[in-house]
């Protein structure tokens, strides 16, 4: 990808949070790019730093948190150096965000139309009447029936799926360059999830915006993402195109994730699904080994000797692992464990 089609360029982004004398480092040296018309999925389990990465890009980190990065640019403009005023101009206009829980992300005090108008009128010189028209058009575009009536309704009168559609319409109001969707379907029913994902994909294709999709669900990623960024313990552990990563995962963590997805038709009834034992370690202080070493079935002495660097795996892929890049020496069976073993994984911390 050439530099001029890059919408978002993040290089070595870190977040540090001082807590009771120690320093939490929930995001470490994360680099990622989103190109024009590209959907990039950030995947990882709870607590791996996905959402904080998104908030850091938006400049919405909690006050105590400290942001560090080599570069954080939107269309070539540095977000890290922008003034608070400039950031406010950009947010909602050039870059917008869709939140995880549509039930709590809309203000219960205002009608849908008023909330949408507010965004438009904050960023554009536009009359209230025109703003309402645009809001109504967008509600129709995201597949909301009778949009005119919805404009005058309050959030509590809408179902979860409708509200998430409203959130998407709100994110689109000012024709942003980049949309960050933080687990946009987690709070929704499975049937609605599929609809919302299809909607996001269609809109993204049509408008050629960049979409940064944050999710813990590889199933969500498969149908929609161009590239996948796998995060573990605050670090990026694998980057590659969607097909590559899902068909031949290189990092053991990704491999574990892929093997824990049931495949319709292949996974037999009663068969134990694979899973990754243990939990994400607490991210305090510097790493003195591979962050995944305690949960990795392939772990060797090299992994315990020191932190592992990101390396090129060919074909535009990158991985943070010492294993071979062609997938040899792997055994999917390591992920399928007897039911009794390790039924209650203990919380392991690398402190």
């Amino acid at each position: 990808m050439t530099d001029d089609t890059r919408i978002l360029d993040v290089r070595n982004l870190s977040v540090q949070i001082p807590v009771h004398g120690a320093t939490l480092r929930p995001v470490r040296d994360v680099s990622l790019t989103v190109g024009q018309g590209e959907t990039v999925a950030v995947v990882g389990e709870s607590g791996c730093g996905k959402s904080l990465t998104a908030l850091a890009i938006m400049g919405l980190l909690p006050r105590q948190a400290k942001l560090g990065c080599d570069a954080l640019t939107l269309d070539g403009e540095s977000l890290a150096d922008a003034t608070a005023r400039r950031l406010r101009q950009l947010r909602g206009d050039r870059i917008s965000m869709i939140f995880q829980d549509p039930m709590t992300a809309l203000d219960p005090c205002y009608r849908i139309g008023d909330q949408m108008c507010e965004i438009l009128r904050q960023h554009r010189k536009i009359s209230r009447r025109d703003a309402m028209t645009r809001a109504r058009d967008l509600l129709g575009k995201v597949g909301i029936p009778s949009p005119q009536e919805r404009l005058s309704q309050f959030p509590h009168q809408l179902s979860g799926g409708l509200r998430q559609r409203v959130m998407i319409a709100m994110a689109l109001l000012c024709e942003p360059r980049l949309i960050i969707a933080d687990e946009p379907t987690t709070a929704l029913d499975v049937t609605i999830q599929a609809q919302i994902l299809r909607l996001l994909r269609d809109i993204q294709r049509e408008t050629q915006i960049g979409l940064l999709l944050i999710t813990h669900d590889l199933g969500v990623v498969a149908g929609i993402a161009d590239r996948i960024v796998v995060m573990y313990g605050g670090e990026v552990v694998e980057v590659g195109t969607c097909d590559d990563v899902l068909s031949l995962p290189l990092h053991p963590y990704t491999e574990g994730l892929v093997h824990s997805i049931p495949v319709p038709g292949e996974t037999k009834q009663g068969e134990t699904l694979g899973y990754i034992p243990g939990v994400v370690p607490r991210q305090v202080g510097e790493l003195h080994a591979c962050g995944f070493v305690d949960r990795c079935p392939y772990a060797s002495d090299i992994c315990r000797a020191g932190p592992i660097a990101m390396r090129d795996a060919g074909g535009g892929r990158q991985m943070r692992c010492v294993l071979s890049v062609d997938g040899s020496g792997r055994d999917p069976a390591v992920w399928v464990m007897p039911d009794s073993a390790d039924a209650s994984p203990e919380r392991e911390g690398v402190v």
Partner: protein
Amino acid sequence: MLITPQNPASVSVSPARVALGRALRHGGFWIGGVIIVAIILVAILAPLLTPHDPSVQDLSLRYVPPVWNEKGSWLHPFGTDNLGRDYLARLMYGARISLGIGVLTVLISGTIGTAMGITAGYWGGWPDMIINFFITVRLTLPVVLVALVAVALIGSSLWLLILVIGLLLWDRFAIVVRSATQQLAQREYITAARAIGSSTPRILFREILPNITGPLVVVASIEIAHAILLEAALSFLGLGVQPPDVSWGLMVAEAKSQLLFRPWMIAIPGTALVLLVFAINLVGDALRDVTTPEGKA
């Protein structure tokens, strides 16, 4: 998907409307509301309701008993006081001062307390610590005593009384607003508001303030009753409302020497006070009932 009613627009009622609708089905709201409205109407329409001036003395008609006493007459339904002033007229005009003090002091204390509570709740950290310190200091001070000292030192006038009470009763506002704001600040729609580029004042006034109206109204109603009682207490001690102004507390104070001989002189303004405070508390309770279970998702 939502089951679409035939005309969705017709069911778009705001949360405030929902609360009001519930209040109108609440017995306490009706009882309290009717009493308060009646007292307010009487206070406003006093010149039309009684021919007497509350401060005109008629020394030939001192201590006329009320109409239910065998010596009473309809000319002075509640009798007259020690200077021959019509007791009903004094009661009606006194309502003006009592109500006015209640509302004005709560405007002052509500503004102070809400500003402090929002600041503490939204920013947390050291602003929160400082404001908490002020709240704690304020809570250690006995209100009546401080008001007494202030009025005794500076002198007593109606406006000073309002100011002193207003500067004392902000604590409950600050505490309630602070905790309500803390809860709200965690909500995703506040983050969402920042994510669309809203400025901090905009978030405070357009997102936080409308969403804490419920608890705010409840506290305000309780504090109005509190302020009215405080004024009565200060007036009873001679440090509140000064003649020729009348307030219900002052009427109780002036009648205290007659407690054993003409008990109605204390009972009449006393009953009025009890009724007003009771009614305000009824409405306050009703408002709390209808705003707290609000299904604000």
